[in-house]
């Protein structure tokens, strides 16, 4: 005992392994657990019920394949005659996404502190979470309509809608990223007598930074795609041009727009993948 270094274990209180449980663990063939036998049919039933409810119909899908092919064939050849307009609008979409992402990320971070259970007091934590849930439940398109009626048609309304929408989505993810940091550095910062702000600045943010950056890039990608939708209600970006082309049956123009969006989104995706590799 004199030189023993291993930690003490309470042999006296250690419970033994049940004989039946031991036999079950040793056996190569396992009878599935009851919870699995009951759970599987329930899951299958839920799936069938949902397929029915959503009116998913394989037959219709097969019949419709011909029409779908016809629709797609009308998109060719793409008509790049109005490429100038497309690029200008695409640029506007990009700019909206940049501003919307920066504002959204900054505001989300501020709100996220209130929604981080390890940092915020309870009286702040719950209301912040509720507000986030409400914002997340409302579609961005509704926010866009609201801001269009408030500040008029144009990209400004779109940016405001993006910013507000991101608090609900990215704010929650930011909060969870900050909750998951290792407690060690936080304890160390408390132990040197750091203030709450300093604990967050040194103990929490540096650890959460890779995740926060990664999610911000994701938000940016989402905002570029989102900006194309917001145009539907006149909140700026390329969406309005897209809708107009559809309504006018200008399929050549429509496909040119879609191709340009695909190129932009792919470029952004590649770019953010590059950044993400660097920071992690």
């Amino acid at each position, binding site marked *: *005992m004199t*030189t023993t270094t291993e930690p003490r274990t309470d042999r*006296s209180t250690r419970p033994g392994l049940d004989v039946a449980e031991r036999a079950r663990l040793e056996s190569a063939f396992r009878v599935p657990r009851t919870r699995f036998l009951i759970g599987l049919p329930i899951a299958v039933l839920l799936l069938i019920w949902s397929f029915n409810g959503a009116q998913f119909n394989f037959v219709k899908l097969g019949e419709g394949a011909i029409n779908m092919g016809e629709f797609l064939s009308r998109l060719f050849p793409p008509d790049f005659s109005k490429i100038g307009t497309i690029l200008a609008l695409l640029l506007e979409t990009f700019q909206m996404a940049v501003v919307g992402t920066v504002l959204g990320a900054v505001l989300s971070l501020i709100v996220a502190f209130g929604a981080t259970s390890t940092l915020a007091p309870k009286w702040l934590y719950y209301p912040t979470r509720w507000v986030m849930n409400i914002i997340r439940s409302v579609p961005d398109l509704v926010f866009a309509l609201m801001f269009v009626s408030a500040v008029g048609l144009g990209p400004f309304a779109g940016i405001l809608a993006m910013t507000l929408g991101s608090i609900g989505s990215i704010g929650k993810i930011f909060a969870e990223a900050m909750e998951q940091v290792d407690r060690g550095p936080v304890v*160390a910062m408390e*132990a*040197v*007598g*750091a203030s709450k702000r300093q604990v967050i600045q*040194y103990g929490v943010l540096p650890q959460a930074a890779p995740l926060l950056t990664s999610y911000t890039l994701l938000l940016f990608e989402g905002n570029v795609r989102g900006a194309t939708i917001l145009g539907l209600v006149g909140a700026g970006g390329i969406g309005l041009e897209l809708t107009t082309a559809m309504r006018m049956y200008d399929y050549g123009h429509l496909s040119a727009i879609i191709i340009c969006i695909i190129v932009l989104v792919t470029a952004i995706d590649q770019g953010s993948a590059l950044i993400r590799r660097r920071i992690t």
Partner: protein
Amino acid sequence: MTSVAAERPSSRRSALRPAAGKASAATPSVAERVQRDEGRTPTAEVRQALPLVTVRGLQVAYGETTVLDGVDLDLFPGEMVALLGASGSGKSTLMRSLTGFAPIAAGSVRVAGHDVTNLVRGELRTLRSEVGQVFQQFNLIPRLSVMTNVLTGALHGAGPINLAGGFSSAHRRRALELLDRVGIAHKASAPARSLSGGQQQRVAIARALMQQPKVILADEPVASLDPKLAGSVLELLREIATQDGIPVLVSLHVLPLALAHSDRIVGLRHGEMLVSGMTSRLDAAALSPLYNDEEQDDDDDH
């Protein structure tokens, strides 16, 4: 004894040699204490000084569970005290109670002139800034540089806006000097996570020194290190205790390490102080009661 500790000058350096000036006032109580328990103080020189930490009859309870029951402890300038005990004996809780991280149910705790049981508003952070802490898992900020990690030791009392680059050049010079001292200066710009365990613990010690601590608490500082590194880290802590005159309380669960690297040993069992004495007068046999209650428990059961 508590009143004597309260008279201790609050300036850091004067704490190192208060004996000359304070001798007449302090002599009776110190002599009294030495008579009562000679084993507690290692050298004549240290006996002259006043304790920087005074714990009397400390009780700590989490709900119904009493973790510490009637612990007395003095830490004098310049000594390295090993805190021994099995898992769950209350070592960590004793450490935590010294910096206001544990609920003190009864008793008195004075650390560096602060009454821990009765801290006024804002005093808690000041107390913590004056006590350097070293942890088992080093607790460095993994992505920040070694240099920045050391600088965080000076966070208390730093300006209102102090972004990562905002430490003064005096702070930075001192951080580099401390890195020289612990032998990691060549890694100053590297991220902390790129260092080995032993190196990280040295950085953590530099961070603690950056606080200009009056006391250093090290909770299982070598439990994550291999034996050779463990010895060198403990030697570094002991050197700091001797050279800077800072008391170092280090909790360990390995007996030989405690016997080799401490001036004094305090042993806890089930939250009670079982052993307290100079390391030179103790051996493995004297300390075995700290651990061997296990067999007795087993015998009782069968």
